[in-house]
């Protein structure tokens, strides 16, 4: 169900939307004030009721995560905001940081208070220089107004926020790699347990949340947790509120759109995205970053025996509301909810090659199945595109990917394997055409 909202994006595009005066003129910082007048437990309860499913891609409930933080301890607790946006196809957090940085600062105040932290680090990838500058300015403005520092809004609960910078590594978007990077180390993921809430940044209890998740927490406090959750068409299955939907690739109106949770891929592509470039046919859509398996328009929802799927069984996957559990239920993944659309002009084998190249480049190299697997996959896909691969090697691709899955310290291996398995299975004919004829009947291009 398509329901556009403007809780987070109402100031996007306005002159100086990133300044505190514009932010406050539309109700900014009311939520932080409200949160600090509540008890910490009540703040966490409201966030639990809001059912904010983590917007970084994993979809874990933010309120539950906050609830893992210790009550009081000898060590300080930290909030770490994951602003290392780099999942191919994903460009939503950047809009928050550049166009509405105070919303993130306000979210940090709410989150710090909720989890019992006095310091927040916003880990921004190095390339986002404008985002970093706007965040620093927003922090300075908030501080000068007395919203941060020793007594935010007059409450004796000191909060400091720092912007930390990365240095070019996709893996640092993985939370434990991010923590290593924040600590000044190589960004290699850590074994868990211990989980960040037990031992995260600097050996202290830490909550790592995505930019959008933190920002939405403030909106949930402003509206009330339950009211926030009820905005969603999937409120009943604990996928609450609003979220940023992105659409890019072969659509007429690529961009970021704020809607209530429950939009379908068809609405995202044809209503928000304005339809396919050149009015071509849809080949497939990667729903939320390149780690998500590609979905084809002729795929049908078929989840018998699950009440949640009854209204959708027999329909195209394009008509299933985009939710963490709805997509999980059909063997897919919602990810970051920023879709990449491929028209029938695009050669799916080249698209797979592009994605595999990304993962080979970004594998941190710590675990053998991922390091060697990504390289091996790249060598084979390059052969496929050259027209020198064999049929056995197509099967080998699926086998390598399957052996990477679940055999690495972090989810990168799975994230690299899932799209490969989906492409090879769903576009088997196109791959075989490359083997048999060097791709004679393929477009051999990615552009319309």
């Amino acid at each position, binding site marked *: 169900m398509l329901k556009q909202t403007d809780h987070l994006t109402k100031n996007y595009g306005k002159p100086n939307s990133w300044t505190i005066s514009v932010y406050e003129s539309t109700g900014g910082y009311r939520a932080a004030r409200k949160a600090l007048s509540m008890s910490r437990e009540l703040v966490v309860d409201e966030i639990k009721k809001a059912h904010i499913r983590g917007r970084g891609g994993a979809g874990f409930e933010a309120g539950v995560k906050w609830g893992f933080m210790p009550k009081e301890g000898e060590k*300080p607790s930290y909030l770490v905001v994951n602003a290392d*946006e*780099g*999942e*191919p*196809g*994903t*460009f939503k*957090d*950047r809009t928050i940081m550049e166009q509405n940085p105070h919303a993130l600062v306000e979210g940090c105040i709410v989150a710090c208070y909720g989890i019992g932290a006095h310091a927040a680090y916003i880990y921004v*990838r*190095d*390339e*986002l*220089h*404008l985002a970093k500058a706007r965040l620093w300015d927003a922090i300075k403005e908030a501080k000068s107004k007395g919203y941060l520092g020793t007594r935010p809004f007059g409450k004796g609960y000191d909060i400091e926020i*720092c912007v*930390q*910078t*990365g*240095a*070019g*590594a*996709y893996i640092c978007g993985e939370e434990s790699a991010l923590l290593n*990077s*924040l*600590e*000044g*180390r*190589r*960004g*290699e993921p850590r074994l868990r347990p211990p989980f960040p809430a037990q031992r995260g940044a*600097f050996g202290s209890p830490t909550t790592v949340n995505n930019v959008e998740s933190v920002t939405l927490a403030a909106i949930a406090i402003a509206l009330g947790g339950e009211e926030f959750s009820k905005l969603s068409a999937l409120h009943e299955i604990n996928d609450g509120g609003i979220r940023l939907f*992105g*659409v*890019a*690739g*072969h659509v007429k109106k*690529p*961009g*970021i759109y704020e809607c209530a949770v429950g939009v379908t891929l068809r609405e995202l592509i044809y209503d928000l995205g304005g339809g396919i470039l050149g009015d071509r046919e849809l080949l497939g859509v*990667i729903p939320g970053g*390149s780690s998500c398996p590609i979905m084809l328009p002729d795929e049908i929802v078929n989840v018998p025996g699950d009440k949640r799927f009854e209204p959708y069984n027999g329909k195209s996957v394009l008509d299933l509301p985009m939710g963490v559990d709805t997509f999980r239920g059909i063997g897919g993944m919602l990810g970051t909810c*920023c879709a*990449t659309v*491929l028209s029938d002009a*695009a050669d799916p084998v080249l*698209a797979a090659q*592009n*994605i595999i*190249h*990304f993962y080979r*480049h*970004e594998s*941190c190299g710590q675990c053998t199945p991922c390091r060697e697997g990504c390289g091996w996959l790249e060598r084979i896909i390059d052969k496929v595109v050259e027209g020198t691969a064999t049929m056995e090697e197509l099967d080998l691709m699926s086998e390598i990917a399957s052996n990477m899955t679940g055999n690495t310290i972090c989810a990168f291996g799975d994230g690299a394997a899932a799209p490969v398995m989906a492409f090879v299975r769903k576009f088997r004919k196109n791959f075989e055409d490359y083997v048999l004829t060097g791709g004679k009947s393929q477009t051999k291009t*990615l*552009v319309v």
Partner: protein
Amino acid sequence: MAFALSEERERELEEILARYPNKMAACIPVLHLCQDNNEGWVSPEVIDYVAQRLELSTAHVKGVVTFYSLFNESPPGKHQVWVCRTLSCALRGAGGLLTHAEHKLGVKVGETTEDGRVTLRTAECLASCGSGPMIQVDKSYHENLTTEEFDRILDRLLYEG
């Protein structure tokens, strides 16, 4: 020659150090600070300096430098151009932009023009997928690029300032 920061930059370094509970956490921001003040690269002297200043082993600092793609271990050109090559941009014509740039600059990806003005690189997804194809020039983004606009940008980098 040993590397050192100016007095003003030293103050900046002190500000960075104040943000963290230990010195190691300053490693990446301090490396950026030094790289920006060392013609765009992290020389062995910079590694020695950062190690000594943050009380880390040179092995640790070198390990960090070699892990991240945005620390240069050799001097880049005066300007660095990154063409995003990842899927959303590729679907909007990044491949054509890259070929054009290679041709115009007379270099392959990863190389610097003979006059030392421009280093051409590819980037993996720069979170600008709705405005592809796009490039990053030094610290700024240029989005929704046409070949003509890209051409004008390259001309400025090659011939101005």
